[in-house]
C-alpha cells in the first residue's frame, strides 16, 4: 500500500515500520508501564473521539473537529513532556489534552458551546486554551518559552500547529522569534495532509521541517503514526531545549482519517480510496502489533484498555450531557479585572 501523498520526500524518523516491525533498536527509554500507557492513551483517545462525533450528531456538541489517525502524533509528543512544561494547542488536540491531565468534560465545554478558549484551568494542567486562529498559538508558546527561560526554569513550551497553519505569517514569526532568542520551544507540526479541503501540496511546495534550517534551528521529520518515534524526537527536542540549546521544529507525518470537522463533507474533495489506503498506516494497529510481538503486552492487556476506553467515553458523555448552559452573566464576568461602570450598566440591562 502506498503511503499518503504528502509523506513523499525525505524519509521520516521511524522506530517501527508501518507493519509494526522495528527499524532498529526500538528502545526509546520507556519501561513497560509507560509503553502500556502510550497504547492505553491512544485507544482511549480514539474511543472518545468517536464518541464526540456521535455526541455532535445527537446535538450534544456543536461542530467537532476529530483527530482519528493522529493519536500517535499527539500522545507520543505530549507523553514526552514533563509536568512543568506547557502546551499551546490548536483545536484538534484532545488526545494531547488527555495525556496532560485535562478534564475531558471541561475540555468539551468548548465544543458544547458552553465556553470559549480554555474552560479547564490552563495553569493547573499546563495546557493552554484551545486555539482556532491557526498559528497564533505558536507565538504564545515561544513567548512562554522566552519567559520561563528568563526565570531560569528548565521548563519548555510546545506549540502544536497544522500543515495549513504553517502557511500563516504567525508560524513564521513564531519560528523566527524562537530561533533568534534561542527559546526553549518545540514547534510541533502535525502534517495530516489536509487543511480543510486543501491538500498539503497546495499549501507548501517544500517540506515543512526543512524550513528549520533557514530559521537557524534543528528540524526533524518524523513518522507521526509511529508513537515511539514521535516520543523519541519530541523527548530529544525537549532535552535540547532544557540544556539551553534552543528550539526545534518537528514535522510529524500523519493522516486525517475523518473530515476537517463534523460540518465538513470530505467527499467533495477527497477520494475514499485515499482514506482506505491511509488506514494501512494506522498508528494504533502498528504499535499494538509491536507490543504484542515483542512480548510487552498480551491480548488481555489490550482488551483491558478497550474496556477502559468504553467506560471512559461513556463517563465523559454522562458528564457532558448533564452540563446545561452557563449563566448569562459569564458573558460579563471576566472581560476586565475591574469592570467599568458602563459595562456594569450593560450587565444589569442584559440580566434584568
Amino acid at each position, binding site marked *: 500500500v502506498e503511503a499518503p501523498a504528502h509523506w513523499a520526500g525525505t524519509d521520516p524518523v521511524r522506530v517501527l515500520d508501518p507493519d509494526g516491525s522495528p527499524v532498529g533498536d526500538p528502545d526509546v527509554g520507556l519501561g513497560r508501564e509507560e509503553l502500556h500507557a502510550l497504547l492505553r492513551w491512544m485507544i482511549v483517545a480514539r474511543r472518545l473521539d468517536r464518541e464526540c462525533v456521535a455526541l455532535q450528531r445527537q446535538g450534544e456538541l456543536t461542530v467537532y473537529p476529530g483527530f482519528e489517525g493522529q493519536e500517535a502524533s499527539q500522545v507520543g509528543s505530549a507523553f514526552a513532556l514533563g509536568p512543568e512544561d506547557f502546551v499551546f494547542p490548536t483545536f484538534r488536540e484532545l488526545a494531547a489534552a488527555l495525556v496532560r491531565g485535562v478534564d475531558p468534560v471541561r475540555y468539551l465545554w468548548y465544543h458544547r458551546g458552553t465556553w470559549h478558549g480554555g474552560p479547564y484551568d490552563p495553569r493547573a494542567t499546563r495546557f493552554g486554551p484551545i486555539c482556532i486562529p491557526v498559528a497564533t498559538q505558536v507565538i504564545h508558546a515561544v513567548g512562554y518559552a*522566552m519567559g520561563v527561560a528568563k526565570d531560569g526554569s528548565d521548563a519548555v513550551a510546545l506549540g502544536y500547529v497544522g500543515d495549513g497553519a504553517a502557511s500563516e505569517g504567525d508560524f513564521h514569526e513564531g519560528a523566527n522569534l524562537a530561533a533568534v532568542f534561542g527559546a526553549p520551544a518545540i514547534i510541533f507540526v502535525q502534517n495530516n495532509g489536509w487543511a480543510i479541503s486543501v491538500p498539503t501540496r497546495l499549501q507548501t511546495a517544500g517540506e515543512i521541517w526543512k524550513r528549520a534550517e533557514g530559521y537557524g534551528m534543528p528540524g526533524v521529520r518524523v513518522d507521526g503514526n509511529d508513537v515511539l518515534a514521535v516520543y523519541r524526537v519530541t523527548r530529544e527536542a525537549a532535552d535540547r531545549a532544557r540544556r539551553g540549546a534552543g528550539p526545534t521544529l518537528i514535522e510529524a507525518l500523519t493522516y486525517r482519517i475523518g473530515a476537517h470537522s463534523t460540518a465538513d463533507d470530505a467527499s467533495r474533495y477527497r477520494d475514499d480510496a485515499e482514506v482506505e489506503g491511509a488506514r494501512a498506516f494506522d498508528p494504533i494497529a502498528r504499535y499494538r502489533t509491536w507490543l504484542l510481538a515483542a512480548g510487552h503486552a498480551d491480548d488481555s492487556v489490550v482488551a483491558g484498555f478497550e474496556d477502559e476506553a468504553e467506560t471512559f467515553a461513556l463517563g465523559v458523555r454522562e458528564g457532558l450531557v448533564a452540563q446545561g448552559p452557563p449563566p448569562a452573566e459569564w458573558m460579563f464576568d471576566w472581560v476586565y479585572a475591574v469592570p467599568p*461602570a458602563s459595562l456594569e450598566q450593560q450587565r444589569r440591562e442584559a440580566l434584568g
Partner: protein
Amino acid sequence: MTEWTMVGALRRALADAMRVDDRVLVFGEDVGALGGVFRVTDGLQEEFGAERVFDTPIGEAGIAGAAVGLAFAGWKSVVEMQFDAFSYPSLEQVIDHVAKMRTRTRGRIDMPITIRIPSFGGIKGKEHHGESPETYYVHTAGLKVVSPSTPLDAYRLLRAAIADPDPVVVLEPKARYWPKEAGELTADGPGIGEARVLREGNACTVIGYGAMVVRCLEAAETVAASDGIEVRVVDLRSLSPLDLDLLEACVRETGRVVVVHEAPLTLGMGAEIAARVMELAFDHLEAPVARVTGWDVPYPPASLEQHYLPSVERIADAIRRTVAY
C-alpha cells in the same frame, strides 16, 4: 521646577515602572541600543539589561503574541509598535488573544500588557506614519485605550497602564512628543477611565484627546477673544472606558458639545460620544453635537496634512455654530 518633554516623561515612566516591578519587560523594534525611533526607551537597556529591554525581529504579530506567552509565564510586557500603521499586523493577536484571554480562560489568566503606539499625524510623516487607529482598539472588548495630551499626564497614564492587570493601548501623540511642560512627575491623579477639565466655561464643552487638545484650548481662547464665548475644554484621556459621568455633567452644565479628533469622521470617537450624551442627557442638549474631525479619506501626504487635521479655525467655527444654534 523640571521641564519635561512627553518623550522624557514616557521614558521616565518606563524606568520607574521597571524599578518598582521586576516583572516588567520592554521590547519591540529598535528599542534597545537605539532607544526607539523616538528615543522613548533611550538608556533603558543600559540600565535594566538586555534580558528586560530587548530588540525583536521586525514582526508586530510576533511582538504582541510573545507578550501573550510571556503573560502566561507571569511577565508584564510593555511593547512598542513603531508607528500607528505598523500596529496593524498585530491586530489578530491583539483582538483574538490579548483582549480576550481573561474571558477565554474564565479569569484565570491576566494579560497585563501595555501596547505603546506612537500615533496620529501632524509631523510631516510618510504615509503609514500618521494614522489614528483608535476605533479598532476601542471597538474591541477587553482592551483599555488611553491617549495623553501633555508630558505630565503621559507619565501618569503610562504608569497606570503598566500597573493595570488588563491590556492597555497607549496612543502617544507624536506631534506632542517634544513640547515641554514644567512640573513634577507623579503617578497620582486621574486614572484610566477619567477625563479632566482643562479650561472652565459654560457656553459649550469642547472634547478632544491627544494632539487635538492643544488646538481645542487655542480655539477656546480664539472664541473668547473674538466673541466673548467661554467654553469648557475636556481632555478625554481615556478613550475606553469613557468617563461617562464627566460627559453627562458637562452636557447638563453647558448644554452643548463639540468633539474633536484627527481620526476620520465615520465611527470615530465623536460618533460614540454623541450617542452617549444623547442617551445620558438628551433633555439638556441645546444643540446637535458637532464633530470636527479628519475626513473620510486615507491620511494625506505631508504637504496636505494641515488640510486634513482639524484646525483651530475649524474648531472655533464649530463652537460658534453650536453656541449660536
